[in-house]
């Protein structure tokens, strides 16, 4: 099992889980907010639509094509 931090809260999930799946597992699947503050969630699941941009260890990444790693810090972007 792998332990990551999502918006400051610890989550423990099986190896091989994508960050997008981790978002869903947290009970709130939204990845970011649009300019008007509305929540946006992963859509295509394959790195095309760019809806799942999150901040991973300080850098903007796509949640759907990134696998979780031990100690990873994920933050939803505003």
């Amino acid at each position: 099992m792998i332990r990551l931090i999502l918006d400051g809260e610890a989550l423990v999930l099986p190896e091989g889980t994508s960050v997008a799946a981790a978002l869903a597992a947290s009970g709130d699947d939204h990845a970011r907010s649009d300019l008007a503050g509305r929540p946006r969630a992963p859509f295509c699941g394959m790195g095309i639509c760019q809806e799942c941009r999150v901040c991973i260890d300080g850098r903007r990444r796509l949640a759907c094509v990134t696998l979780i790693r031990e100690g990873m810090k994920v933050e939803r972007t505003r």
Partner: protein
Amino acid sequence: MSDAIVIGAGIIGASCAHALALAGLSVRVVDAGLPAATAAGMGHLVSLDGNAAELALCSDSLTRWRALAPSLPASGAYHRCGTLWLAENEDDLATADDKRAALAMAGIGSELINPTRLAALEPLLRPGLSGALRVESDAILYAPRVADWLLESVGITLERAQVAALEDQKVYLADGRRLGAQVIVLAAGLQAGALLEGLPIAAKKGHLLITDRYPGRISHQLVELGYGASAHSGQGTSVAFNLQARPTGQLLIGSTRQFDTLDPCVEPALLARMLERARGYLPALGELNAIRAWTGFRAATPDGLPIIGRHPEREGLWLALGHEGLGVTTAPSTAALIRAEVLGEHPPLDPLPYRFERFQASAPAAAEGRR
């Protein structure tokens, strides 16, 4: 029946329709919804000084955009961010000073910025640049939205249809209808050649890329001083650094210029060259996430100036096309020239350098009015 038909609802057609409607004409705008430069472009309102006629058009237009700015909708994203023309070496600084002098002749203020001030204005630029020329009156806007807004004016009817053929004071639509008007303005961008033979217009492909939102990092439009040379070169593939901070915090990065292709695909090798160049100025770009890249086509004439004015042989036909990489900037003056000629008013600036006649065999000096 309308007084005028405008073919094309890009920023040029929309501006012409708006100007004619403000003059009291009833205007029908017909647009086929084809891929348009206006939707693809960068929307930098910039004073270019490739020659006197180009600078005159830019300078007049920028004044018109400033006057219009307070009425534009917020979604038009007009923002007077100014341009920083970046100098990499002493030669560039000399170019910057020539540019300053040329702009001053057209009444446009600009100032040379030393490396220390440059670093304070844009801290993310790499150290070691020789300085910059700052043109405060330059701006940006979101052209597709502004074009739509111009078309909402009283007196304009917009129709989604393709013009299949053009005759004197008549257009034939692809659906078989025939429309007539005293005045027809052809503002169909790159596709105008399909309706009128003998237009000297070539496609210049350009790539752009936009990042995720990173607000507050860049405040000016940043352009390398070599950009002018790249923009005006008549052949070959070139890449120049050009970057705009969108009001959303996204960074819009350009630019490439290519002839001899109509393939809209994004070319990874060329995109990589463009980004490498951009990173040479802004190393921090390497850390950012790009979300989209796309291409567009500029409609270029042999001398780099647009074709604006009455067609010398065709009854009731006006041309407003061939604006290359400057059509958003120069749309308001294009429209003002068309309006003046249609109504028989005094033109706002010397119309000769933009006339179609300069490309006709019997034309005197093709470069009249240019330096």
